[in-house]
C-alpha cells in the first residue's frame, strides 16, 4: 500500500512503517504536539494523521467531505481518540466506528485527561480497545506511549482482512 500524497492531511510523519497510519484525534494543539513528540521519542515512524474534531475524524475514516478523494480501503492501524472534542465528541465517533462494517474492528485507544468512571464505562461499552489517561508528568506520558507502541504496533496482530 502506498502513502497517499494527494491526501491533504494536516500533519504527517513518515518512517519505516509508512504503510501503517496512526489516526490521532485531538483538538488541543499542545496535546497534539506533546503526543507527536512522545511518539517520535519512542521511534514511531508511522504516518500520523491528525483530526482536530469528531467530524474531521469521521470524514477521514469514511473518505467523505474534504477527504472524499481518499482511498477508503486504507484504514489506520491505530486510532488514538480524545473524548472531549468539538462538534462530534469522541464517544460519538467511537459509536459510529463500531456500527460501520468498514471500521468495526479498528483498534481504538482512548487517550484522554478524564478519569471519570462514567467516561471509562462508556468508552469500553462502545467498544474501545484501551483506555489511557494522559498523565501530567511528561516523562510518564512518554512511557505510556511507549507501552502503546509496543503493544498495538509491534505485538498485536491486526484482525484479518481489509485493514
Amino acid at each position, binding site marked *: 500500500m502506498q502513502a497517499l500524497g494527494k491526501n491533504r492531511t494536516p500533519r504527517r510523519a513518515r518512517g519505516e512503517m509508512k504503510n501503517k497510519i496512526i489516526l490521532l484525534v485531538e483538538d488541543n494543539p*499542545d496535546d497534539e504536539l506533546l503526543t507527536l513528540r512522545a511518539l517520535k521519542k519512542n521511534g514511531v515512524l508511522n504516518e500520523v494523521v491528525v483530526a482536530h474534531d469528531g467530524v474531521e475524524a469521521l470524514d477521514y475514516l469514511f473518505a467523505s467531505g474534504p477527504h472524499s478523494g481518499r482511498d477508503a480501503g486504507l484504514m489506520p492501524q491505530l486510532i488514538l481518540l480524545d473524548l*472531549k472534542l468539538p462538534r462530534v465528541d469522541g464517544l460519538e465517533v467511537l459509536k459510529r466506528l463500531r456500527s460501520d462494517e468498514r471500521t468495526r474492528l479498528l483498534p481504538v485507544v482512548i487517550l484522554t*485527561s*478524564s*478519569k471519570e468512571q462514567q467516561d471509562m464505562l462508556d468508552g469500553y461499552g462502545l467498544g474501545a480497545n484501551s483506555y489511557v489517561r494522559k498523565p501530567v*508528568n*511528561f*516523562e510518564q*506520558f512518554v512511557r505510556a506511549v511507549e507501552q502503546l507502541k509496543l503493544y498495538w504496533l509491534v505485538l498485536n496482530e491486526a484482525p484479518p482482512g481489509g485493514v
Partner: protein
Amino acid sequence: MMKPGLAALGRGRRLLGEQLGRTAVAYAVLVVALLLTGIAYLYVNHDVEQRERARFEESTQATKRAVDRRMDTYIDATLDGRGLFAASEHVTREEWSSYVAGSELERRYPGIQAIAYAERVPLDKKGSFVERVRREGLSSYDLRPAGARYEYFPLTYVAPSDKANRPLLGYDFYADRVSRDAMEQARDTGLPRASGKVDLGKAGLSKQSGFLVYTPVYRHGAPDETTDERRQALQGFIVSVFRTDKLLGGIFRGEPGPRVDFEIFDGAEFTRANLLHDDDGVLHAGDASYDPRFEDMSTLEVAGRIWSLYFSTPPSFEPGWRSNLPLFVLFGGLAISLMLFGITWVLSNNRIHAERVGLELEAANEELENANRDLEETNRELEGANRELEAFSYSVSHDLRAPLRSIEGFSQILLEDYAEHLDDEGRGYLGRVRAASRRMALLIDDLLDLSRVTRTEMRRRSVDLSALARDISEELRKSQPERKVDFEIEADLVAEGDARLLRVALWNLLENAWKFTEKVPDPRIEFASTLREGRRVYRVTDNGAGFDQAYADKLFGAFQRLHSPEEFEGTGIGLATVARIVHRHGGEVWARGRVGEGAAFFFTLGR
C-alpha cells in the same frame, strides 16, 4: 381550598355537633332504660299484687268454707234431736237428757250452750202445762216472760241441765220478736231456722250474745205437707242455744296457711250490734280509718239466715318474698340504667376523643405531606446542583489538567531541547514549574475523589475489609518495593457498605500510615477492630510520625495538613475523604496520636 383557620373552625363546629349527637345517644339510652325499668316495675308490681290478692282470696275462701262447714255440722247436730221425737210419741225429760248427753255437746259442739225442747202450749192449756211440769219435779217451773199470748213455746227440757242452763227452763223465746220470726219460718218450712242475734242475758244466762236455731217437731202421724198442715201439726221446737264466743273459736286449729282477719255479722249490716264473731277482737268493718292491704266481703246462709262476712288482711299477713320483687326490679333497673348510661357516655366520649386524635393526626399528616413536598423540592434542587457539580468536576478533570500537561510537558521539552541555553538556576526554576504542576495534578485528582465520594450512589453489600486492606498493602509495597513495612491485618473483618467507597477510605488511611512511617526504623501498620458497646470499631494504627492530639479535630477537614509538603507529601484531602465516606455509612471517625509515637485512626460503619 379552605384556609387552615377556617377549616379548623369548621371542624370544631362539626366536632361540637357530633359531641352533642353522641352524648344524646347516652341520654337516649338512659331514657329508654328508665322507661323499660318503669314498665318492668309496673308489670312485676301488678303481678305480685295479683298473686297476693289471689293468696288473700284463697284464704278468705278457705275461711268461709271452714265457717260454712262448721255451721253445717252444728245444724246437723240440732236435726238429730228430731229423730228422738220421730221414734216415740212422747219423749220424757230423762230420754232428752240422755240423748243430749250422748251427743257430747261440751266436747264436740262447744258453741252450743244447750239443746232444749220447747213445747207448743196454747193459751188455754198454759195452766195445765205448768202443772204437769211441776209435777215432773220442777216445782218452781214457770213461764217467762209472763203475759198473755196466743201461744207459748216455753223451754220444757233443757240439757245439759246444769246450773248455768237452769234459768233457761220455762223461758219462752216466742215472746222475743227476733226469735219468733225464726220460729215461724221453721214451722212453715219444716227446716231448721236460725234466729238473729239475741241477748242470752235476757233469758237469764250470764251476759253473752248468741242466737238460736229452731227445728220444728210435728205431731206424730199428722200430715205436714203444706204450710197449713205444718202449722196444725206443730208440736214444738228443738231449740239449740248458740253462744257466739265459743262457736268459731279454734276454727283453724291445726290448719296451716295464711290467716285472714274475719268478722261475722248477722244480717246485711256491718254494725257492732250485729257482730257475731270477731276473730281478733277489734272491729274493723265500717271503720273508715282502717286501711288493710286487701279486704273482702261475703255472705253466708246459715239455717235460712244471711250472715255477712268481712275479711281483711291482718298486719301479720305475711308478705311473701315476691312482695319485695317490684322494689328489687325498680332499684335493679335504675342501677342498670345508670350503668348503661355511664357506659354509653364513656364510650361516646372515647369515640369523640378518638375522633379528635384522628383529626390531629390528619393535621399532622398534612404537615408531614407539606414537609415532604418541601423536601422533594429541595431534593430536586439538590439534584440540579449535583448535576452542575458533576459537569463542573468533569471539566475540572478534563480541562484543568490539559494546561497542566502543557506546562509540565513543555518545561520538560525545554529542559531536553534547550538545556544548553539555560544555566543551573534556570533549569532549577523549570524543575520547580514541573513539580508545581505535578502537585496541582494530584490536588485535582484528590479533589475529584472527594467530590465523587459525596456524589456517587451508595451500593451497600457485604464487604471483606480484611481482603481490601491486604490488597492495598500489596499495592503500597509495589509502589515502593525498597521499603520494608510490617502489615498486621485482622482476618475476616466483614462490614456492610459500598465496596468502592470503603476501598477509597481504607486506601487513604493505609496510605497515610505508609507515608508517615517512612522515617521510622521498624515501620509497623495494623488494621484491626474491637467491639465497643455493641458497635464494631475499626482502627488503622502505625508507629510513624504521629501528630499533636490538640489538632486531632483539624485532621478531617479538607486541605488541613499537620505536616509541611516537604516533610511528607500529600494534598490534605485524603482524611476529609475518609470522614465523608464514614459519615455516608452512618459511622464516626476519630484519631489519637502523639508526635513521634504514631497515630491511630478509628472508625465505625453505622449499626
